[in-house]
């Protein structure tokens, strides 16, 4: 038994046994054709419906949201979500479509919403019945998130929302949005307030944006006098920036509360962007002069990526040993940057290794791994740009962890 497993509590071990059994008893049937590779790539209702069905089943079985209190749709467990995640991932369970709801909205609601809202909004997030999207970014507010210009004007017990949000993944499937809006022009940071906005109300126009890949996947959302109730405000007026920080902390995976998620496993079919898939690819891929796996330069580059990948998973164990760290957030805050750049660099290596065949698109019969790699490379920029670009991540790490002076 490895030490990593020995570190789990008896409750966790029991829960793992339960999860494993449930997953055995509930095998996932065949999926509709053309399933996307992740939640942000969902474009067809049929795919969404399939994934929502399975999320609901897993929630009913207690595998999703299990570390949340019972009254909010959880199970009141401790540190069990990571177990459920591991088991679902291992079992090849379908990925959970409600990614914004689970990873961003739920923890924010838990920390900042009224008791009434928690009881109302959290259970359908876990069950997957209500899909969520995020309304932070705007044309003029990307890295400079606090520059949000969408306004919320108070009118009695209501707020009137006007403005323009962009890069809104899943907007067309969503029932709710977490929304950052300006309630005061006189102060950049203290002039923001955080709401949850019903996407089913009048005054909302959703218009798809084409991604670099040519696929549509996210949207622009225009608000024109959308009226929302004051009860949909989270925390106080003017505290939107602080509330948004809670959201981002969880999005970047830097919090203690684990997000329910299924990591697609490499099933030897080259469907995942990881070192193992790359090594498999290298056994057949070639530009000129034999497979990449027999080329010392590619072997070296493959090992460089494998080492980065393995170090990233090794961080998890070391993060639990205070004596082996200099700063409590030092590893956690690297998470997003490491993941996103590793995927980008891995896909880039795959393009190099596949040479001329890297020109072939998804759908071309001769494309290596079905054309995964050029699309993985293009999509990788989503992760190095969204939720704080890699440049912003480096500012954060330099300032919060190393204590260097703020660049802005």
């Amino acid at each position, binding site marked *: 038994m490895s030490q990593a497993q020995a570190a789990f509590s008896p409750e966790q071990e029991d829960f793992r046994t339960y999860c494993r059994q449930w997953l055995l008893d509930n095998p996932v049937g065949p999926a509709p054709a053309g399933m996307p590779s992740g939640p942000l790539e969902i474009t067809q209702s049929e795919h969404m419906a399939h994934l929502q069905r399975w999320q609901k089943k897993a929630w009913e079985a207690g595998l999703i949201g299990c570390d949340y209190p019972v009254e909010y749709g959880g199970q009141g467990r401790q540190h069990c979500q990571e177990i459920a995640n591991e088991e679902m991932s291992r079992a090849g369970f379908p990925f959970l479509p409600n990614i914004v709801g689970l990873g961003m909205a739920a923890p924010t609601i838990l920390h900042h919403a009224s008791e009434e809202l928690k009881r109302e909004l959290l259970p359908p997030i876990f069950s997957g019945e209500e899909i969520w999207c995020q309304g932070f970014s705007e044309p003029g507010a990307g890295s400079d998130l606090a520059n949000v210009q969408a306004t919320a004007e108070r009118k009695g017990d209501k707020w009137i929302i006007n403005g323009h949000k962009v890069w809104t993944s899943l907007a067309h499937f969503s029932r709710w949005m977490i929304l950052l809006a300006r309630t005061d022009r006189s102060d950049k940071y203290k002039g923001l307030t955080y709401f949850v906005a019903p996407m089913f109300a009048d005054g909302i126009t959703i218009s798809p944006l084409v991604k670099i890949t040519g696929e549509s996947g996210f949207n622009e959302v225009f608000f024109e006098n959308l009226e929302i109730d004051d009860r949909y405000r989270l925390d106080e007026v003017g505290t939107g920036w602080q509330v948004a920080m809670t959201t981002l902390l969880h999005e970047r995976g830097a919090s203690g509360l684990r997000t329910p998620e299924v990591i697609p496993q490499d099933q030897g079919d080259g469907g995942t962007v990881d070192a193992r898939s790359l090594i498999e690819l290298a056994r057949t891929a070639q530009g000129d002069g034999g497979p990449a796996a027999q080329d010392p330069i590619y072997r070296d580059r493959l090992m460089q990526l494998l080492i980065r990948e393995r170090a990233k998973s090794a961080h998890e164990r070391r993060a639990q040993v205070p004596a082996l760290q200099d700063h409590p957030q030092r590893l956690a805050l690297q998470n997003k940057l490491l993941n996103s750049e590793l995927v980008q660099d891995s896909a*880039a290596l795959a393009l190099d290794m596949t040479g001329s065949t890297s020109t072939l698109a998804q759908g071309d019969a001769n494309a290596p791994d079905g054309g995964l790699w050029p699309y993985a490379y293009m999509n990788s920029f989503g992760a190095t740009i969204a939720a704080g670009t890699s440049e912003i991540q480096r500012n954060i790490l330099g300032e919060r962890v190393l204590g260097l002076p703020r660049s802005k």
Partner: protein
Amino acid sequence: MSELDEIGFGEEAALLKQQAGRLLAERMPIDRLHAMVAGHDANRSGPPPWDESLWREMVDLGWSALALPESAGGIEMPLTAIAGLMEEIGRAALPGPLLDTLAVSLVLAEVGDTAQPAMTALAGGDAASLAICDRYGAWRAEDLDVEYRDGLLNGRAWHVQELSRVQHFLVAARNGDGLSLFWVDASADGVQLERDDIVDLTRDQGRVVFRNVVAMPLTLQGQSALDAAFPAIWTLLASEMAGASEWLLQTTVEYACTRQQFDRPLGWFQAVKHPLVNLMIKIDETRSLVFEAACAMDDGAEEARDLAHMAKASACDTAAFAANRSVQLHGGIGFTWECFVHVYFKRLLHGRSLWGGAQWHRARLAERVIGPLAA
């Protein structure tokens, strides 16, 4: 052949480059190009769109005959001048078979008398493309899928550029132990075109299938004709890629000067400024090597082949860096079709793997400079 000036880039070359820059900016500005190619990407049926009338105009200007010998009715400009033109083609990300027709001319010029009819066709304004690669994009005799036997070609040529935009193919086929070259009309009996579905929105790539196609070798020494012509071809492609990379640099610089974040233009931040400088340095490396290589070829200098490997290796690395950083530094908008960076991004990734990537060219260079790897 026009006179070279002292430094290798004369007035005629400068005028050609200027003329090309003006014509392309006017006739195929990026918003027009984008509208044209974006429409196709949605359904991907039929050949990818291009502006054939602009191509005819370029032919009338003589551009497609620039690398043909004067004796064959061509213009025979110095390679430096043609490379200058290709830089402008790259800057415009222009779809069309110019590079390929020039490449075919360069090979034909190495073939000799038997190539005369083919050169006459090109001098008359036809377009042509190389059909010489195996499924991995290489062109060694032993790996080719196309075979010549008993007067007939059979097999499949892969990674043929500008598939449906040309009238002729220069075909490489196994012939006994060697590699022979053939001139085949796109409309000949037994020739079938299979289109690849590719990422690049500006090119038209595919396979040419030969089924008992009647053909006569242009030359039995196909490998040496290709070997002799490729340094010039790599140099032209490298120049085209440098031009496209420069467009990305200038476009990203412009965005960085106007886009404000944290009450500052993006380009004020060193995290944006320094990568752009690094990109400029890489582009200049490629451009100087392209010019030096072209000069060396015009001079018949011994170093020419080394320099061509350097130019293409450099172009590949520059292209990869340009594509990567220009999307990243554009941020969210760079990840969408709201800006045009993605067109160059895809075109450069394609060019990078065409006719040898960076690592392949450096390995060839090492064989020449250091000596062969012991088996």
